[in-house]
């Protein structure tokens, strides 16, 4: 993990729940991430996904989803304020200190995501490439998670 301070990234996050075959994009497999145009689609559950896109695009993405799913039972919610996001570089070893997931590179590969715990904090982990892990954390746990990551890195 590099020594740069962790800076939150401003991103739009849209939670969508609907039957998988109705999605306007190919649904990612379990614990997986797919692309939809230039957006990331994270698997959260069998009928739930998180669309992550550039800041200020939440209403555009939400409208696209609403239009595509019109007439079907669905839910589209802008949850951009729900989680703070930052990118960890070379941070898997540090994350492993507080996370029960098997984050060894043979099991945890780019293009995977998971909702899990880092110590007591709920997090979503998204492995973007070999080195970069994107971490989504509830705002009230942000300080704790960042402090703990930094402390583990030092010791």
């Amino acid at each position, binding site marked *: 993990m590099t020594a740069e301070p962790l800076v939150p990234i401003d991103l739009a996050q849209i939670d969508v729940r609907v039957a998988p075959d109705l999605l306007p994009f190919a649904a990612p497999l*379990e*614990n997986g991430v797919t692309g939809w145009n230039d957006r990331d689609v994270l698997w*959260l*559950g*069998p009928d*739930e996904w998180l669309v992550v896109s550039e800041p200020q695009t939440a209403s555009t993405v939400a409208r696209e989803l609403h239009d595509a799913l019109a007439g079907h039972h669905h839910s589209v919610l802008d949850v951009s304020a729900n989680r703070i996001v930052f990118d960890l570089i070379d941070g898997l070893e540090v994350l492993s200190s507080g996370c*029960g*997931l098997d984050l060894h590179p043979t099991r945890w590969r780019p293009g995977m995501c*998971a*909702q*899990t*715990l880092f110590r007591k904090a*709920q997090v979503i982990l998204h492995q973007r490439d070999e080195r970069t892990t994107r971490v989504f954390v509830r705002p009230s746990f942000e300080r704790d998670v960042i402090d703990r990551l930094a402390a583990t890195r030092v010791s």
Partner: protein
Amino acid sequence: MLLIRCPWCGPRDEIEFRYGGQAHIAYPADPDALSDADWADFLFMRDNPRGPFRERWYHVHGCRRWFNAVRDTSTHRFVATYRIDEEPV
């Protein structure tokens, strides 16, 4: 720590889960027709076997889905886990 296999997410630490009691207890078709004793039986009385027990579990810190599990109450070994819409094993 126990490793519990969520039918959706795969194997996870037990701290990600919450226990939900005995599984496969159907809501009475006509609750009004039940006597107080039968209603109390439905609400409160649960099996307490020694050995394999079908239970509900909730993956609260993961996909937030309920699923069923067969757990051996004498060894805490999870014999199987299966989705809500799957047949009991």
